């Protein structure tokens, strides 16, 4: 019989991991297509959370309605983000520009800029403190399962993660959009030459990825009851680590890595002070980069 203490820590770790995974899915999807990190994903997550709590404060709709509002706001945020921070760097369609690393990596800066602008704007509008949320909407009602305690939010987040992951895999494998996303991700120039509308595909990827990011934001916001302008930063870092560990473009890999990360953090709190638990993520990042440069689940593949 395992000590219930470790069972409880394991449960907390898995639930932490799922929170990271929720964010990592959209993050990895966008990376997979453009091969650059979208630094503004954390702010899309925050915008999703704010949209959700504003809807709650304004007219207190049922939970599912909030989800749809948040998805719509996320889609809009993703669309605008792509337009402002990514599209301008694809305006030259000659081969040299398309292959240029500098052009691609300039979007690192532009997405970082957008993320700073969005965060500062939210701080000006709402202040930097936690927002008050109607307690009835929080998804943290305890459920006892023998020696361990979980909350209803754990179940919701688990179901949503599975749906996201499954839905995305189906979309990528069996739909026309998915086919073009995979084509652009594999070789944007080639995709363009065979007649795929790469711009449209990229916009769609941003819309889908940002919808997932925004949904993650409101779910985690209601899970912890903590919505504030810089809430996207730490999950963003964890999602990034999960993505790198998972092999950069493998979504299931990122999810597994996120779970590993969550469990490692929660179990490490047993042995070291929680101040050091954050170090676990960075340690994993370094170990992965040094010993598994392809990630734990990344297939070897030619990069464009």
């Amino acid at each position, binding site marked *: 019989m395992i000590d219930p*203490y470790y069972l*409880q*820590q394991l449960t*907390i*770790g898995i639930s*932490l991991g799922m929170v990271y995974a929720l964010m990592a899915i959209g993050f990895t999807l966008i990376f997979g297509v453009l091969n650059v990190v979208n630094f503004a994903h954390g702010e899309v997550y925050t915008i999703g959370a704010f949209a959700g709590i504003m809807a709650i404060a304004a007219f207190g709709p049922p939970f599912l309605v909030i989800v749809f509002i948040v998805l719509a706001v996320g889609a809009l945020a993703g669309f605008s983000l792509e337009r402002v921070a990514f599209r301008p760097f694809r305006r030259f369609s000659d081969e040299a520009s398309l292959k240029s690393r500098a052009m691609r990596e300039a979007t690192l800066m532009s997405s970082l800029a957008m993320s700073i602008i969005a965060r500062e704007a939210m*701080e000006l509008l709402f*202040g*930097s*403190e*936690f927002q*008050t*949320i109607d*307690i009835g909407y*929080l998804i*943290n009602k*305890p459920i*006892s399962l023998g020696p361990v*305690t979980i*909350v209803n939010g754990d179940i919701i987040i688990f179901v949503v993660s599975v749906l996201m992951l499954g839905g995305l895999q189906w979309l990528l494998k069996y739909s026309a959009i998915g086919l073009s996303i995979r084509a652009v991700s594999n070789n944007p120039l080639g995709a363009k030459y065979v007649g795929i509308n790469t711009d449209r595909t990229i916009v769609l990827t941003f819309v889908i990825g940002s919808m997932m990011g925004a949904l993650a934001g409101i779910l985690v916001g209601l899970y*912890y*009851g*903590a919505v504030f302008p810089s809430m996207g930063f*730490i999950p963003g870092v964890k999602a990034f680590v999960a993505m790198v560990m998972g092999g950069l473009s493998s979504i299931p890999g990122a999810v597994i890595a996120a779970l590993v990360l969550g469990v490692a*953090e*929660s179990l490490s*709190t*047993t042995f070291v*002070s*929680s*101040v050091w*638990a*954050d170090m676990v993520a960075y340690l994993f990042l370094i170990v992965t980069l040094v010993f598994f440069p392809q990630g734990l689940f990344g297939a070897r593949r030619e990069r464009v």
Partner: protein
Amino acid sequence: MTMSRRTTIGLLAGAAGMLAVPFGAMAEGPVYLGYQLPLTGNTAQYGQDFKTAAEIALKDFNASGKIKVPVEIIFEDSRSDAKEGVAIARKFVDDDRIVAALGDFTSTVSMAAAQVYKRAEMAQLSQTASHPDFAKISEWQFRNITTQAQEGVYNADWMNEQGLKKIAVIAEQTDWGQSVVKDFAEKVEANGGEVVFTEFFNRGLPDFRSIITKIERAKPDAIYTGFFYEDGAQFLKQMQQLNIDIPVYSTSAAYNQKLVELAGPAAEGLFLTVTFLPNSETDHVKKFVDEWKAARGGAEPGQFPAQAYDAVNIMLEAVARAYPDVSRQNVRDELAKTKDFPGVTGVTSFDENGEALKQLTKATVTGGQFVPLK
């Protein structure tokens, strides 16, 4: 180079200050005080609160006619920036009319400005600077906020009276958090209790569940916590999530109506020490709360504005006692003599270091309200 220039300016400012004394004493015009506080920037809400509190205190004082001349306060915006704070301090000490300064908000800015006040020999009274070293800078620094050296001991005795012997302690990983643990733990051991668990966390930690599970394993009788209201709300909510029922005690830093708003029912039964409760029945608290509500469209004042209100009143009393010889030295000396001042944040005296000794009130959260315990 910079150092020597600073020293020169300091010396000049000091000289100007000394020269100013006789003129200040003879003038029949108003007495001036300086107040440095953040009126813009990230911490503007606190500075705006202090300003309102100071205006209330000043209006009442001038209306009372305790001294023949009116007192005026010059407000300067430090934006909670140490460089700004020092510049304002220099401006105040260079202004011959100003006899003493109030502020700043944060310990960092207050301590930076303190160096200027120390050299120029002008009294500085901060309503909120709680860093252990602030009041020790020189005989010119005073504060109107309790430190953990006082609260920790008080709370340790309180828990001892309740028969709570095995205590778990958690606090944020800051200078302040360290002082919460240190002063409390020493007293617990002295009382024959035992600190069975100590841990620090990074401010803003989203998930306390691993720590809470660890605390539960240590099987304490109670948990003593050093956190501010946001971390406090997270901690209490997650205690409830994990179905853990161990009494939680905290410091006055957790006292904020927002804690109850954020944590809801999870905040019920939290024990803490406070120095100010807006729903107190005392006359002068009622008077302050009424005037504040009139100035702020019905909102209740928090602990910080109440501390600012008292700080300004303590300063005004010192000026009144020094009158008619209102020199910088006299105001400082009278300030140091403050004893049993009946403030809204409790009866206050200054010790020899300029530390406020306050009467603390035990409180708990019941029905979404902070209520005093007898």
